[in-house]
Each structure stands twice: as structure tokens, then as C-alpha cells.
């Protein structure tokens, strides 16, 4: 056991040396075809600090941490770790220097158990690991971090949140001295997030350092010691968190455009009497053989945004997948009305449902929303609602251009493979595409995930605008209560697979809803 603990030698409390510099970055430049992703960026990470890195979509945050993790190699510039100049050509190099990256998408191997995934990285114990010892160690460590997970479960059985927690656990157990979190905790439920932030503080007090990428400014102000801001690949500045406010950070991030950020409720629409989506007592099985959705009844009318609030993992995902025909409905009915006809779409398949004019913004957009290897035009043309049979590339190009202009997608051209765009810009492409095909209904799961505030507000306005003007019905599932309150006409709360309450937006009480969410 003692051996295992040596892996994380930092955890034996070392003096807290606030001023010592762990990572120093100078004049970092990274170019991608057609884009200058990082332009002379500097950065300084001190030992024992939590350093938030903020910036709008495509500012270069992800590129920056990927360079520190050895995934990308910079075109020029210097990286100095603990006083020594380094060149990382693979994550292995970074891990050797105690640098770990946890990103938004879990990278762990689904067919292995939690402990197997963790043992994989423990080089010393790779071949002859005493599994039970390590399992116990994992249990201890996870308690310490505030994570409850059985080391013996296979990873594929875990929810997104649990997978993400395992990623964090792994980084810590592997002996990371620098934790880089690229929106890794953004989508964790509040309770887990709080616990993890507490752990982060302890981690820093013991001499570890954290680079925290988030698009939530209040969060950064709350947990970080210092905040650095990037804008369009350039370094804007670094401020002490205690001297900064949401406004000053927003100005650094967006400049003039920061005035566009608002969390005021968007104008309420007057829904018609026509019910577009009618979910009748629907039961859906989750991945573990138990019902995740237990008798949900919902109605979304034309010209209405129904927001479903809830902590992730309470059946929202399964409900949305069932509505889209991607998961089997065990009991109950799903009806969609188009021009007077009410069509039973229960278990009729995604293509049937889509053909009625239904747009879909899925969870895990990079996996289910777009094809990363293909370009923007191809990602539009792949939808049966956009292209059938012979593709008219001329028209598709025009459509792609319109989308790029409307959503201000940062891309060299409409023929750029989507994988070369930043996460936020990919999301814009997806949202734009789905809005363009949603003639009757839009089903959206966290549609502004990974978008910066300005873009997120813009997207919500565009969605609401379509609802007001074209009487679109929208079913919006979001883990972000601000978002729910900003766009919804009606708010439903989902908890443990059931609808715990439905409120008209003007009468909804935030406290009451938060209470229902965790009931």
C-alpha cells in the first residue's frame, strides 16, 4: 500500500509555496490551416493556485491546454515546467511531468472497470497489479475527493457524471501535480461540483496547481485565485479573482459585445391551442435494466418553449432519446401533430419522426450531432430533411454560408472539416442546422453547452424568435437553470424519472424549482 501512495507523493503535505512558478509559457504560437489559434500567448501557473482560463468560443483555451498536454505541438514559443524548458510530443511526456488533462468528453475505456482504467495508467503496477489493494486505495481516494463510485463497475454502465468523476479521480491517482480541467466539471450536478471544488482547494493547498477552463464567470470568481483571459488566440490579461467582478471579466472576454449578455427573460410567447408533441404516460428503460423514465406526461404546444429542468441523470436523456426514436418506449404513447393530423410516432424510428419536421440537438453533440471528419457542407447535406438523392452542392454551399454568417461561425471556409473548428463553433453549426430543419418541433438537450455567454444568449434569442414567428414548438432540456428561466414559456421539473411539477414561466419560483429538482 505504501508503494501506491508514493505515486502521489505530493499528497504528503508539502509546504505551500505560493510564489513558485510551476508552468511558464512564453510567446506560444499555434496555427491551424486558415486559423491562427494562438498568437503569442503567455501564461503563468503558480504552485498551489487555482487558475481559471476564460475566453469566448474559439478563443484558443482548448488548444492551449492541449499543447500543455502534448496533444498539439506548438509552432513556436517556450514552455517551462519547474524551471526547465520542455517539449511535449505526447500526453505521456506531460503525465511524466505530473500534468493531467480532463476534458469535457470522458476518455476512459468503456469495456474496462473503473479500477482497470485507473491501473492502466499506473505504469509501475501495470503488469502485476494487486487489484484488491488498488481497489481499496481507489475507494479511499474517491472518498477523499468526494466521489462515490464502485471500482468494480464497468465504465460503460456509468452515467456521464460518474464517468467524468472517474476521469478526475484517475488524474489525481496518477499523481498529477497540475490538473487541467477543460470544461470538465461544467456539466456536473451542483452537489458533485461543490464537493469537487472543495477537493480542488485542498489539492492546491498541498502544493498542486489547477488550470480551470469554464465559461461560467461566477464559478471562476468563486473558486479561482487568479483568472487569465484569452480572446481570439491572444492573451488579454490576468487578474486576481478577489479584485475582479463578473463585469470586468466579461469586458476582458468580449470587449464591447459584453453588453449583449443578459439573463432577463426573453419575451413570452402566446402558445396556440394546438398540441404538437404529446407524451402520454411514457416509460423508458435506462442502460441498467431499470426504468429511467417512469410514466412521463408532457404536452408542448405550437409556439411554446417547454423547459425541462433537472439534475443530469434523472431520466431527461432517456426521455429525449425515446421521443426521437433512439430508445424504445416500453409503455405509453408519443404523438406528434402535423397540420391537423395526429401521428403516433411511438417506436416508429428516427427517420419517420424527423420527416415530420423535427429538429434535434442531442446530448454529446460531437458524437451524435455532427461527423467530425466531414466538412460543414457535408454535415448539412447528411440530413434527409436537407438533401435527398442527388446533392445540389451549390445550394448546400449557399445554405452553409448563411449559417456561417447568421451564427458567426469562425471557420476558414464552409469546406473545412468540422474537427478543425472549436467546440463552440461546432455547436453553432449543429444548432443552426437543426433550427433550419425544425419546421414543427425542436427537441434540444443542453443546446448552449460549451457556448460562451454572448453566443449562448444569441442562440437562445434565435430559438425564441423562431418560436414567436413560426410557431415552432420547443422541448428544451437543460441542466442550466438560467437557461431554462430565460427561454421557457412553461417549466417542468424532472426528478427520478418523473415530472415533479409544471409551472407557467411567469409563476415559476426558482427556489421551489431547485427544491423539486433534488427531491
Amino acid at each position, binding site marked *: 500500500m505504501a508503494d501506491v501512495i508514493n505515486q502521489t507523493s505530493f499528497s504528503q503535505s508539502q509546504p505551500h509555496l505560493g510564489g513558485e512558478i510551476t508552468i511558464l509559457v512564453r510567446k506560444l504560437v499555434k496555427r491551424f*490551416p486558415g486559423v491562427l489559434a494562438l498568437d503569442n500567448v503567455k501564461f503563468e501557473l503558480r504552485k498551489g493556485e487555482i487558475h481559471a482560463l476564460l475566453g469566448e468560443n474559439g478563443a484558443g483555451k482548448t488548444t492551449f491546454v492541449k499543447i500543455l498536454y502534448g496533444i498539439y505541438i506548438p509552432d513556436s514559443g517556450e514552455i517551462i515546467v519547474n524551471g526547465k524548458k520542455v*517539449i511535449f510530443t505526447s500526453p505521456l511526456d506531460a503525465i511524466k511531468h505530473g500534468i493531467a488533462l480532463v476534458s469535457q468528453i470522458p476518455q476512459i475505456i468503456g469495456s474496462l472497470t473503473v479500477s482497470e482504467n485507473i491501473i492502466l495508467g499506473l505504469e509501475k503496477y501495470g503488469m502485476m497489479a494487486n487489484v484488491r489493494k488498488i481497489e481499496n486505495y481507489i475507494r479511499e481516494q474517491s472518498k477523499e475527493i468526494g466521489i462515490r463510485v464502485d471500482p468494480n463497475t464497468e465504465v460503460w454502465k456509468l452515467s456521464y457524471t460518474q464517468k467524468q468523476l472517474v476521469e478526475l479521480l484517475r488524474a489525481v491517482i496518477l499523481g498529477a501535480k497540475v490538473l487541467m480541467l477543460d470544461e470538465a466539471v461544467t456539466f456536473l450536478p451542483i452537489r458533485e461540483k461543490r464537493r469537487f471544488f472543495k477537493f480542488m482547494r485542498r489539492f492546491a493547498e498541498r502544493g498542486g496547481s489547477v488550470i480551470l477552463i469554464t465559461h461560467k464567470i461566477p464559478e471562476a470568481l468563486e473558486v479561482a485565485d487568479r483568472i487569465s483571459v484569452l480572446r481570439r488566440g491572444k492573451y488579454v490579461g490576468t487578474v486576481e479573482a478577489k479584485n475582479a467582478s463578473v463585469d470586468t471579466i466579461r469586458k476582458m472576454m468580449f470587449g464591447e459585445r459584453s453588453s449583449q449578455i443578459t439573463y432577463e427573460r426573453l419575451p413570452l410567447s402566446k402558445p396556440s391551442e394546438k398540441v404538437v408533441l404529446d407524451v402520454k404516460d411514457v416509460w423508458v428503460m435506462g442502460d441498467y435494466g431499470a426504468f429511467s423514465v417512469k410514466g412521463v406526461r408532457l404536452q408542448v404546444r405550437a409556439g411554446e418553449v417547454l423547459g425541462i429542468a433537472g439534475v443530469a441523470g434523472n431520466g431527461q436523456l432517456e426521455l429525449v432519446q425515446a421521443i426521437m426514436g*433512439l430508445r424504445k418506449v416500453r409503455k405509453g404513447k408519443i404523438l406528434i401533430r402535423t397540420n391537423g393530423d395526429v401521428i403516433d410516432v411511438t417506436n416508429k424510428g*428516427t*427517420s419517420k419522426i*424527423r420527416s415530420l419536421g423535427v429538429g434535434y440537438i442531442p446530448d454529446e453533440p460531437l458524437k451524435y450531432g455532427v*461527423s467530425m471528419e466531414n466538412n460543414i457542407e457535408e454535415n448539412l447535406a*447528411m440530413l434527409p430533411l436537407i*438533401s435527398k438523392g*442527388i446533392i445540389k452542392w451549390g445550394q448546400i454551399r449557399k445554405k452553409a454560408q448563411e449559417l456561417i454568417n447568421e451564427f458567426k461561425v469562425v471557420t476558414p471556409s464552409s469546406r473545412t472539416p468540422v474537427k478543425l473548428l472549436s467546440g463552440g463553433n461546432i455547436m453553432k453549426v449543429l444548432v443552426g442546422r437543426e433550427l433550419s430543419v425544425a419546421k414543427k418541433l425542436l427537441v434540444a438537450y443542453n443546446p448552449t453547452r460549451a457556448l460562451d455567454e454572448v453566443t449562448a444568449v444569441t442562440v437562445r434569442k434565435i430559438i425564441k424568435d423562431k418560436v414567436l414567428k413560426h410557431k415552432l414548438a420547443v422541448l428544451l432540456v437543460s441542466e442550466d437553470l438560467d437557461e431554462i428561466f430565460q427561454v421557457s414559456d412553461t417549466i417542468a421539473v424532472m426528478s427520478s424519472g418523473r415530472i415533479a411539477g409544471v409551472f407557467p414561466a411567469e409563476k415559476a419560483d426558482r427556489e421551489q424549482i431547485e427544491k423539486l429538482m433534488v427531491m
Partner: protein
Amino acid sequence: MRVIVTKRVKPLRFGGIIIPFLSIVIGIFLATLALYGLARVPPPLVYGAIGQSLISPQMLQTFVMLTILGVALIIPFSAAVWNIGAEGQIIWGMIASAFIGLSVAVRYIMVSQAELPKYTNMPGMFVLPTPTVSGAYAVEALTMSPGAAIALMLILAAISGAVWALIAGLMKAYLDIDEVATTLIMNYIAYYAYNYIVYGPLQGITISTSGFGLSNALHPELRFARISTTTTATWEGVGLMIAIFAIAWFVLRHTTFGLRLRILGSNPNALKAAGINVRKYIVLALTISGAIAGLVGTILFAGNLYQLIKIKTITTPPTHNIGYTAILVSWLSMLDLRGVPIAAYIVASLFQAGINLQSSLGGVSGGSAMISSGALTYVLIGFVLTTFTILRVFSEYSIRIVREKR
């Protein structure tokens, strides 16, 4: 000093042309060294044979078949569906063509030896060279126009190849059984089925064919027309090649079907969420591939062989393993349709070079004459492809040397 290898965000420009070209030059050079080292084959002889084969009309038929097969394989390959079963699909194409050409499109008239001269010169009649078991001679008489018969051969061959691939496609799509294994295993099933058929339903009726694992010979009017006397390539084959290439190009680039096939290769989940039946696409990719491979069966049967000949050992089928060689062609093209004819040309030339080399080695004394043309061919192709595989790394990775300051 440190060498840094990084994956390129975008593949090397013109890498698709430079890399295959370089691999051929380097690969051939290495192959000559190996041939000299192993069997004292004089390098000038190798270069001569290769140079000759590049402009030799004899390689044309191989080129035509490899191009068609390359296209047939790129369709499922771009969807990450691996059809290793072109061999079996070709075999079924041959059987189907033989069925039409030897039994549907002709009827057999039995004549005595005395009557024979009357039929020998009669238009539309084809006298089989040896007598039948009963002593009489058999004459093949067409039951339909040659055009209709050839069309039927092609259609049935395409259907047969498609059905053979469809079986693997259904297993892959609905039971999630790996198509690499099924298509490969089904090649051998096809070989044995072929042997059963040449000893059974399609066995010849003359004394030199019946029971010897040979079918009757194809009626000359049903045989494809050779382009010239110096080549075995046929007008029909070349026409099919151009048509198939053009259609495949259009489908892959300009239809939603082609686009979705390509997306299926990288992200099937996105297709599902878009409302596309992914299973259908898997099945179709294999079926279309099988249909095209089936057509090659007709080209081989009606263009070259004219007769089904039993497979003595499964390593020497009448296809000369061209269904496997085609996999190399589609890899060498880097799964880009435009690269297929180029890759097919190179591989066909090397094939021919092996044959040429062997005949020129006949005059050289010593052990080198023992080398079969097959061995020579595969030494050449093997070296080129190995070089190609290594060089391809440069297209996807950049290599930089950095000087570190101490």
C-alpha cells in the same frame, strides 16, 4: 537534438500522388536487391521486365479487372465495412455467367460424326471438339440473340455476387457479426461450391470434360470481343470499367447515399440521430460491392476463360486471387476513387512484370529459373506496398528536428 513526430491536421499536399509514386520507385529498387540477393536475378533483367510491362498490352485485362474491383471495394471501405470477399463474389459471377452462357442461352444438338461437316460451317453453331460420352458430337445452338445472352449473363452475375455479399451484410447489420471474417470464409465456401458445380450441374458433356471438372466451352458468339490480338482485354470489359467508374464517382460525390456512406465510416452515431437507417447502409454497401465484383466474374469468364475449370488447390483459383489483389489496389489508392486506376495500373504492371521476368529468366542458368512468376510478382508487389505503408506515415505525420538549448 530531438526528433518530433506530430500528426498532421491536414494530410500532406499532393501526398496522394507523391507517396504512391515514391513507393513504386523505392519498392522496385529494394525488390531488385532482394531478388539479386536471394536468387541472383540480374537487376537489369528486372528493370527490363518492369519497363516492358508498363507499356505491355498484355497487362490491360488485369488493369481493367483491378480497376473495377478497386471501385467495388472502395464503396464499402469508405463506410468502414470491409469486404474481403470479392473472390467469392467473382466466383459466383462466373458460375452465373456460365449458367446463362452454357445452359440458358444455348441448346445442345447431338449429331453423328457423319453429320458433323454440315454443322461445322453453319452460322450460329459451335461444335464441341471432342465427342460426348455416348459417341455422338454435341453442337451448341443459340436460343437467343448474343446481345440478350450477354446482358443476361451480366445481370445474373451481378445478382449472384450481390446475394453472396448480402448474406455477410445482413449478418453484420442485424447480428453484428464481423464482416471481415464472414466475407473471407465465404470465399472458400464459394470455391467449394464452384468445384461441386463443375463436377455436377455444369459439368461438360464431352469425353474430355465430363468428370474431369471442366464445363463445356462458351459459344464463340457469346465471348467478349478482344481489343486486339496482342491483348486479352475486351471492349465489353473496358466499357464496363468506364461506366462503373463514372457511376461510382457520381454516387460517392454527388448523392446523399454516397455522402452517408462516407459518414458511416467515421461516425455512425451521427447518422442514427439524423434519422438514417444505418443497417440498411451497411447492407447496401456490401451488396453493391458484391454486384460489381460479380460483373468481374462475367468479364473473366466471357473474356478470358470461356470455360469453368475445377480448382485443384484453393490457392490457385481461376481468379488468380485477383479479389485479394484488389484490396491492395484500394489501399494503394488511399481510398480515393481517383487513385484507383493509377493503383490498378501499377499493380497490373507488376503482375505482368513477374510473368515477363519469368520467361526471360528461362535463359538464365542456375536456381533462378525455379522461381515462379507468382513468386516474382509478389516479391515486387510486396516491396512496393511495404514501402508505401511506411511512406504513408509522412502524409499523416510531420517530422521536425528541434535543437534543444542546454
